[in-house]
């Protein structure tokens, strides 16, 4: 409860600071006017993201949800430095993001463990980049394996683990890197419901223990409500911030609890219109090839393109 008070104070502090001349402390992660356009094969420019502005406090858990193709993963990749934004910038700890860096570790839908290394070495290989000594690496790897309850599997190889265990190793590996921000791109989507349920619990408790700043992308609304302090809803393409929700439910939350379900349903109401839009666009484009140009033209018409559109788009 004290924690909450502190957070509320911090929040007020940030608000006041923003109103003033300069913020006292920059937000952990600051997305400033992010836009991104893709050029398709036939030369059309599709706007994927439009003017995204998000400030994330230290220790905050933020989920981004939106209909498929709204650019959530693109947004995460831009934050990770794996993709470049057309315009706008990402600031991590006040420093401009120029490429991938160890201050922003990404967890993917797949665990991406290296099959030739055992679980412990999979964690250590990242720690090597941090310049830790052999003993320190080993100790740290074991500590974080303990955190995800996989101490017994330190010497196992990835192919001997289940999907859920692999994701836990990936989580341990990401946390062991001690990033400023943990970026999670639908990390639990490929898991079965039970495993996901357990990992939701674990992620919440680990987050409370470590106080990591987490940016989490998902299309699963219950997951978002269950995990996040704040849920950001993106619109269908081009992705814009449609709505933000502060989730104040007590933790640990259960993704099947009534409160979570009720909030998820509320957000679903907002999202439904967007999903219908996506479906309609997909169906219209798919139904006849002749009107292809017309449909796309109509969709892009009147859409404000951000200037300047990046020349380095592929």
């Amino acid at each position, binding site marked *: 409860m004290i924690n909450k008070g502190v957070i509320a104070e911090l929040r007020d502090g940030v608000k006041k600071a923003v109103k003033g001349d300069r913020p006292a402390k920059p937000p952990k992660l600051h997305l400033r006017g992010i836009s991104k356009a893709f050029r398709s094969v036939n030369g059309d420019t599709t706007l994927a993201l439009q003017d995204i502005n998000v400030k994330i406090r230290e220790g905050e858990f933020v989920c981004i949800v939106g209909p498929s193709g709204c650019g959530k993963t693109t947004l995460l990749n831009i934050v990770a430095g794996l993709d470049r934004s057309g315009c706008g910038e990402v600031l991590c700890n006040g420093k401009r993001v120029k490429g991938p860096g160890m201050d922003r570790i*990404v967890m*993917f839908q797949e665990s991406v463990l290296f099959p030739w290394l055992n679980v412990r070495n999979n964690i250590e*290989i990242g720690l090597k980049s941090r310049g830790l000594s052999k003993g320190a690496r080993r100790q740290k790897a074991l500590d974080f394996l303990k955190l995800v309850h996989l101490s017994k599997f330190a010497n196992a190889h990835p192919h001997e683990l289940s999907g859920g265990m692999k994701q836990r190793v990936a989580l341990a590996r990401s946390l062991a890197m001690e990033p400023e921000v943990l970026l999670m791109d639908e990390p639990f989507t490929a898991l079965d419901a039970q495993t996901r349920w357990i990992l939701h619990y674990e992620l919440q408790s680990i987050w409370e223990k470590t106080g990591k700043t987490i940016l989490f992308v998902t299309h699963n609304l219950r997951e978002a409500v269950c995990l996040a302090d704040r849920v950001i809803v993106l619109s269908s393409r081009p992705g814009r911030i449609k709505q933000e929700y502060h989730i104040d439910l007590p933790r640990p939350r259960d993704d099947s609890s009534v409160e979570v379900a009720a909030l998820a349903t509320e957000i679903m109401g907002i999202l439904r219109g967007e999903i219908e839009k996506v479906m309609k666009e997909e169906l219209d484009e798919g139904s006849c090839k002749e009107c292809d140009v017309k449909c796309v033209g109509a969709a892009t018409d009147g859409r404000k393109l951000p200037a300047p559109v990046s020349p380095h788009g592929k």
Partner: protein
Amino acid sequence: MKFGFYVGVVGIWELIALFHVWPPYILPSPVSVAQTLYYGFEDKSLLFGIGISMERLIIGYSIAIVLGVLLGLALGRVRYLEQSVGSAVLGLQTLPSITWLPAAILWFGLNQAAIIFVVFMGSFLSIAISTEAGVKHIPPLFIKNAGILGIKGWRLYWEVILPASLPSIITGMKLGWSFAWRSLMAGEMLFVNLGLGYLLQLGRDLNDMSLIFAVMVIIVAIGMIVDHLIFGLVEKAVKGRWGLLVEEH
């Protein structure tokens, strides 16, 4: 089952020899082949031949592994190299390596280096091609994730790209080994100077059919040992570790 089959084959062979269906200078009996093997090992002439051949093979093959893997990594990672050198590699690969022998003799002279070069050319390109394929099939997420974990430069090659393509590299090494072994035998028979191939030619010159058979037995034995035992075990271990082994029933 396997064992019984071979015992049967040798038994029939012995019977045919025993009844003098063909004279011994056409078909020696298994006993005489065994005797030749025994005396050959006793006076160390066969051992010497094996030693000489293996020395050439190991030198040429080792150089081929090192350069082949390096070329393969370069071809797999550098696009303009792939487009230029890659096509040349594929073209040259169709050339049986023994055809390099005349050129090699003129380049290096009538010595060890020429035959080592032929062995090298036998395995170098196939190792390079397999390595290239291995590098290209690395899941892009591996490379992406390595970048996120701060694995860059030499560490990226040594700790991620090389181990990730190891299963393919081993396939290439296995293929390269059999090419190298065949090239070596062909080379030694043409360019007569010690070695197992030379012993085969000697058998022909002396009309010693049992020596020819004995050397052939040795060639088969070495080939099988390396193919099945060494490569078989390594391949199984690597594929098991990499999680690529499909349960066989």
